[in-house]
């Protein structure tokens, strides 16, 4: 039995029926990680000893005849920007290479309470800045569908681990597409929840008005299940939304007949690869066959999303990353004769090129005399972008687009030109600016590489995205293929 291709809900049933033990599952998971790792390189840190200890507790519970929760005993992994008490959390940066958090992020606390078992911490672009995971200061992660290609980013390790069978599910973070784009490149389900729906307490901050945590899974049911565990109000995050959160999994399986699905024409224009467009158009036909009513709509300010994002995100990053000064944690330069030299050398040596570029850009955009022209202007245009979505959702329940204009690209293809790399996120950025939820599912394949489909919804409408995605998945079986790594 290939346990590493199974979904969390399937493994849960196997545990409940005593067909496998949690210890067997965790051991098999650790073996799979080691077998695939020489090819995929998704993990920065492994926590197998702790995982085995946790598994023993779950098995004791089952042996005692106690009921186990839906994620209890399920092996998972986290992007390495979520704080784990006693387990190194690096953000794939030299400046945090030795940081051991003294506390758990709220999502970690919640997953521990749910009984999920941490196998390790996943690779990422340094401080979540990038679209290919090539900006990790440690090593690049490879796409399990073709190891010559990038897994996407910034949560590339989390996406590749789920695709390669190295974890049943993982968490990532999404500031401009960092969950959805790697999910698309790796052919897995990835949810960017509504701003405020999942607590960010203990997530290392990048751009605070945009960052959200969300799950990577092998199918939609698992995604709903993990959302059930992590969504909710948290007193420790002042941006957490005090609203009612539904049972996402219980809502799956309903008819989507009569649902109004909008195709924003700006997301199907120039720059979208023909092979991607063809797969997405086929997917639209499937939804139409399920009774969805398809119509065209417009998000007229889409072309401004990229410049708005690349002013707001670096501005907020430059402020958030000011805390890395070599005083309280992380790396400190050896050369520190006085305080200012210590700051400057520590940051110059500790941060990588892309992080420095964004700190420079953000510092400039916020500096005296330029604030109004750049940051304030970007925030005003952000209002217009959000307004586009408000209008579209008056007519449509869900909007549909490609997740990325292309399939996974090859290593080094875009590293020389930052602006070209930024264009990878053209279909995903607006969602973060508007604060709404969006979900990537695998729509199909082009030349053997996964093509991602993005569903966007109104704020707090995650359940609708999951229901529509579930209907698509059931109709097409698009979640049943796994990459063959030859291991």
């Amino acid at each position, binding site marked *: 039995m290939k346990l590493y291709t199974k979904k969390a809900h399937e493994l849960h049933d196997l545990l409940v029926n005593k067909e496998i033990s949690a210890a067997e599952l965790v051991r098999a998971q650790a073996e799979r990680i080691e077998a695939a790792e020489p090819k995929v390189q998704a993990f920065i840190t492994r926590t197998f000893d702790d995982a085995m200890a946790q598994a023993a507790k779950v098995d004791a519970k089952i042996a005692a005849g106690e009921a186990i929760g839906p994620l209890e005993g399920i092996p998972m992994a986290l992007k390495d920007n979520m704080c784990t008490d006693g387990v190194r959390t690096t953000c794939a940066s030299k400046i945090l290479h*030795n*940081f*051991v958090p*003294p*506390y758990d992020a709220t999502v970690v606390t919640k997953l521990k309470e749910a009984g999920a078992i941490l196998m390790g911490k996943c690779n990422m672009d340094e401080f979540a800045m990038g679209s290919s995971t090539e900006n990790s200061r440690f090593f690049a992660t490879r796409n399990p569908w073709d190891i010559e290609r990038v897994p996407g980013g910034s949560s590339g390790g989390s996406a590749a681990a789920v695709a390669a069978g190295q974890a049943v599910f993982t968490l990532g973070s999404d500031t401009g597409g960092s969950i959805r784009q790697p999910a698309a490149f790796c052919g897995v389900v990835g949810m960017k929840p509504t*701003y*405020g729906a999942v607590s960010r307490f203990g997530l290392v901050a990048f751009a605070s*008005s945009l960052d959200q945590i969300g799950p990577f899974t092998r199918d939609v049911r698992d995604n709903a299940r993990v959302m059930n565990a992590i969504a909710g109000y948290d007193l420790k995050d*002042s*941006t957490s939304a005090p609203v009612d959160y539904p049972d996402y999994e219980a809502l799956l399986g309903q008819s989507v007949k009569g649902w109004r699905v909008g195709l924003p024409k700006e997301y199907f224009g120039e720059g979208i690869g023909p092979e991607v467009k063809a797969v997405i158009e086929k997917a639209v036909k499937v939804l139409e066959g399920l009774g969805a009513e398809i119509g065209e709509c417009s998000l007229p*300010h889409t*072309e*401004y999303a990229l*410049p*708005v994002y690349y*002013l707001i995100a670096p501005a907020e990053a*430059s402020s958030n990353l*000011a805390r890395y*000064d*070599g*005083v*309280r*944690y*992380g*790396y*400190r330069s050896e050369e*520190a*004769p*006085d*305080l*200012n*030299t*210590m*700051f*400057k*050398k520590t*940051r*110059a040596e500790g941060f990588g090129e892309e992080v*420095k*570029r964004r700190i*420079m*850009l953000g510092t*400039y955009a916020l*500096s005296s005399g330029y604030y109004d*022209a*750049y940051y*304030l*202007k*970007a*925030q*005003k*245009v*952000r*209002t*217009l972008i959000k307004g586009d979505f408000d209008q579209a959702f008056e007519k449509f329940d869900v909007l549909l687009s490609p997740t990325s204009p292309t399939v996974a690209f090859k290593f080094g293809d875009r590293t020389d030109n*930052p*602006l070209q790399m930024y264009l990878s996120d053209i279909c995903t950025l607006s969602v973060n*600016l508007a*604060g709404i939820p969006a979900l990537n599912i695998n729509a199909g394949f082009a030349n053997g590489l996964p093509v991602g489909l993005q569903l966007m919804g109104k*704020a707090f409408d995650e359940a609708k995205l999951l229901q529509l995605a579930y209907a698509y998945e059931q109709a097409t079986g698009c979640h049943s293929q796994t990459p063959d790594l030859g291991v």
Partner: protein
Amino acid sequence: MSLTKDEVQHVAMLARLELSDKEVEKYTTQLNDILGYAQRLQALDTANVPPTAHVFPLQNVMRDDRVDPSMAREKIVANAPDEEDGFFRVPKIV
């Protein structure tokens, strides 16, 4: 409007980043490219548009004023590059 090397040096000082001459050169070109691209925002009239700082309209998030346990001091200073008697050590300031 374009950014000069001197301005890039000044921004690096504000950001407490030591840059090599090569980096100054590279960032001057790249920041000018990115800021040039951002100029297209100026084409939009936003005189009467309010800025969006946060998408979810939360205001005055309060909690009860009560004392909760704090994190253990030794766990916090354990991460410090240099520490003495539970304090962070830094180079001489004055």
